[in-house]
């Protein structure tokens, strides 16, 4: 039997491995010789040839034809081929832990009789995709018997085109040894600073390249190729190897882009500067603060994290309208008829949502076929938009007082890959800095007694995002008469969300802007979606500082 590469795969539809229920291929590829020259090879050479975008579009067309043929009123499909590369900075003798994980997935959504069904799979065969589409139609028909003819989803107007993340250098074309050497040098830029180390011997990053085709029965067909960089383990601790009192910082947030994400000429210097700044904080004594209400100054990375987890999440239209009840939860910014157009935060806060490059969320179209754009969410403290899909926008529009308050669509419906159902997700949030000069030091200077949070932390909220707790801040410090005087021990910060944003007292200027990125869970079974932010430093007039030190 002639050898088939994956490009030829679709031409020889669904060659099945004997005895297996799934489609597959039964020809062994030629092995390459294993030599010490592996390090000079680009990662892409270690993989089978990827499927072409035309192949992925053919799969999509096959799925839609099958859905139509089975009686779907509407249908759309996402077909994804993804390569994820995980790289460690390693010793010169070994490459370190390195892996290339290729994956293929698709998800088909159909509407029949007012009901929706979603079926996903991983078998790259036209027959399997078509069967999945027919299965989805059968399920939707079954659901229609129980519904009231309501359809939550319909495809939007036809869109077509192609888009690729703007990159300068494809990370999958860079030799493995270069990847490892670069990460080593970035790692050492921090760890050469005295008292700075890491819990692991090297940094680990993930690069992802994904080609995703979206197509719908309304005539949409878009092909996007995403390049993303994500630091998996790229965190340093000033004070290492101590456990108590150390300062954690993560110098490089996740973003879209190519190898240039890590090759900026000043990146090593910036990492070293952060390490120096964090190490300097170690000279401060380490003590608890009395519990109470205090002002809180926060750097831009932490403001971004707060904004995403307490505002962005609460503004997701499906949460607001109750579609996530029993799953990730509801929203304190509901019901929309009572909240839209009201002041939900200090007049200082103006925030937009979008999906621009180079944020990790960058795309030209979302997974509903909506073109992405920047929309205002909060203007001078007033709520002007929710994060909506087309269907949610209709429901939100009907709920608002004003006919003019038409929710804008930022194109924020996404699925992490083809075999997850698309959901409304918080995209990139941008908070406008203060037009007046205000550095982080300036914000601290005005505080008689308070706390300072630096570097990225994580915010845990309740199921309607009405309250929150700051977890794992990089640094939690005490401000006394305008000066940072102590590292705090055994303290935590918690807050009521509405009150904390209304207590926003000041913002930093553009020099305090910081980029941040992370992931939030949603849906059931839960799935992760990436968010990002650009935010200035901020002063919040009061939060609750509590005691977290316990003896057991």
């Amino acid at each position, binding site marked *: 039997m002639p050898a088939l590469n994956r490009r030829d795969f679709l031409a020889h539809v669904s060659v099945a491995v004997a005895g297996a229920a799934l489609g597959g291929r039964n020809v062994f590829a030629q092995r390459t010789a294993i030599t010490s020259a592996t390090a000079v090879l680009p990662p892409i050479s270690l993989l089978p040839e990827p499927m072409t975008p035309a192949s992925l579009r053919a799969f999509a067309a096959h799925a839609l034809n099958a859905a139509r043929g089975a009686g779907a009123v509407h249908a759309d499909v996402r077909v994804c081929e993804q390569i994820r590369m995980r790289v460690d900075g390693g010793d010169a003798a070994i490459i370190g832990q390195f892996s290339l994980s290729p994956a293929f997935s698709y998800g088909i959504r159909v509407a029949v009789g007012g009901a929706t069904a979603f079926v996903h799979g991983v078998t790259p065969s036209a*027959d399997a995709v078509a069967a999945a589409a027919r299965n989805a139609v059968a399920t939707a028909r079954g659901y229609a018997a129980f519904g009231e003819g309501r359809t939550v989803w319909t495809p939007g107007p036809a869109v077509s085109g192609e888009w690729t993340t703007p990159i300068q250098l494809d990370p999958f074309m860079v030799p493995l040894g270069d990847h490892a050497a670069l990460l080593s040098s970035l790692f050492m830029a921090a760890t050469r600073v005295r008292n700075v180390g890491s819990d692991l011997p090297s940094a680990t990053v993930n690069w992802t390249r994904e080609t995703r085709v979206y197509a719908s029965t309304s005539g949409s067909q878009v092909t996007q190729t995403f390049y993303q960089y994500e630091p998996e383990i790229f965190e340093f601790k000033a004070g290492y190897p101590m456990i108590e009192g150390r300062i954690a910082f993560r110098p490089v947030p996740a973003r879209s882009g190519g190898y240039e994400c890590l090759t900026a000429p000043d990146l090593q210097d910036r990492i070293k500067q952060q390490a120096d700044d964090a190490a300097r904080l170690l000279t401060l004594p380490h003590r608890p603060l009395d519990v109470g209400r205090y002002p809180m100054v926060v750097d831009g990375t932490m403001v971004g994290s707060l904004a995403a987890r307490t505002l962005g999440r609460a503004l997701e239209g499906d949460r607001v309208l109750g579609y996530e009840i029993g799953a990730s939860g509801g929203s304190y910014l509901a019901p929309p008829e009572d909240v839209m157009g009201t002041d939900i935060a200090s007049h200082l806060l103006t925030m937009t949502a979008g999906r621009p490059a180079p944020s990790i969320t960058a795309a030209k179209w979302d997974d509903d076929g909506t073109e992405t754009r920047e929309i205002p969410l909060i203007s001078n403290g007033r709520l002007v938009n929710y994060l909506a899909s087309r269907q949610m926008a209709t429901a939100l529009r009907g709920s608002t007082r004003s006919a003019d308050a038409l929710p804008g669509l930022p194109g924020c419906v996404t699925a992490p890959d083809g075999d997850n159902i698309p959901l409304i997700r918080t995209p990139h949030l941008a908070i406008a800095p203060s037009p007046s000069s205000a550095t982080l030091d300036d914000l601290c200077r005005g505080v008689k007694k308070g706390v300072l949070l630096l570097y990225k932390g994580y915010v845990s909220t309740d199921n309607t995002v009405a309250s929150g707790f700051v977890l794992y801040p990089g640094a939690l410090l005490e401000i006394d008469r305008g000066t940072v005087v102590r590292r705090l021990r055994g303290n935590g910060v918690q807050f009521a969300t509405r009150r904390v944003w209304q207590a926003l007292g000041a913002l930093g200027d553009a020099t305090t802007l910081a980029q941040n990125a992370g992931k939030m869970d949603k849906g059931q079974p839960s799935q992760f979606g990436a968010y990002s932010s650009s935010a200035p430093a901020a002063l919040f007039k009061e939060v609750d500082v509590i005691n977290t030190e316990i003896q057991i």
Partner: protein
Amino acid sequence: MTASGHRIRSLYERMESGRPVMTREQLIALAQRVLHVSTLSGVIVRVHHTVRAVTRLANDHVLSSDDGEILYVQVETSTGGPPSPIFQVFTNQIDDETVSAALRQCEDLLRASQVFLADNGMKHMPRYQDAPAPVRLWHDATVDAMTSSRQTMIPQILQTVQAAGLQAAGFVAIMARAEAAVSKEGGVTFFHDETDSEVTVSARDLARKGAGWSGQTARDWRTIDVPAVASRAVKIAKDSVNPVAVEPGRRTAILTPTAVAQLLRHFAEQWSAVNTDAGLTALSKSPAGGNKLRQRIFDRRLKMTSDPADPDGGYRPYMMQDVVASPPMTWVEDGVLKNLAYDTWYAMERGKQYADLPFSFRLSGGTTPIDEMITKCQDGIFVNAFSNVEVVDRRTCLLTGATRDGCFLVRDGKISKSVKNFRFLTSPFFFLNNIEAMGVPERAAFGYTPVGEREQWWSMFSNDWPRLPLIVPPLMVRDFNFNMLADAV
């Protein structure tokens, strides 16, 4: 029909056939195809195949299905001992070219690391042992329910909740999974298959801010009682209307099994022997190191065990990290710490029994029903469930989160009124030492339980839905720290 005349069965055809996932023979054949071309020892190939049928309901109607399959092939190479890295490659494509490429990657790196380790005088340690006794976690009735249950359970949920004048939401998920691991060196083969299911129902009274939740999870669908789950959610929702604010503070708490399970889902990492001996967990003797083995750490009545063949839960009978049998373990008995979870290499070094972290366990020691706990309670809070439970401090297992979907004041032996939700701050190493009463353990439904920030590291084992069984009792504990009001419904 394929070019060779072989028909590919659809997902639903496979569900209806009673075997939606690959058989033992198919999984092992696939793994052996990969191993056949490997020239190195120390190679393990694992294949995991999961099929699930999911229905989500919201706002009184079916939101969507989410049916499909998840497949991954994991190729792993290692010399088997520390500090050897384990090279792993995952893919969800089973064509020969892709899996061969995965194998080549691992082998290249293993060769490189063997040179490194030989140069540094590190020795190989064996990792493979005999196959474990199989455990029966597969139920044909659960597979049948993938296609047959929707026409009955959807109206059961919707009608029960709507008849009470409430708004319905729900989640029904049924899963079948098969996995195999084949090692080249030991010639050892592991195979395991299982089914699992979970039904959760939320009921809301929007006008009067009432919310109730109930759930049930079981490997055998025949034991799932959908009407009972829906009815319980309705009752809690109706009882929870018009909640009032009550002063936060330390109070007696009566916790359902779901609430207990949500608090204890972060327990597993506390049992890591490596971290404990390094002073990093609540089971460490001190921050400087050492452990609390043979010390009493909980209430004397408490026993904590893990058993792959547990009749109420069970789990795969081999360890995730190594291809060895996962033994039943007694972690705590009479409140005394009996064992920690040692990796295979650390166990060999220390002369201890190896064991996986207790992602699945049974907590037992009492028989008091919840109604009796309420009768005995003079002043306390009944908690139906928690949300977003996260670890604040790993060293003490200090947790934060909030109550949800049913929180009630208990006064003088009766449920007195519905109260607004609270945030809390506590540690299992507190409340498991403050037990007033303990009930009969049952497998708890988790409902929506997102992967926490810290859990992402363990997510392959702890968040893989459905969550591994936690068989826990209802508890009545004193001095539970409800430290802030959370105005969440």
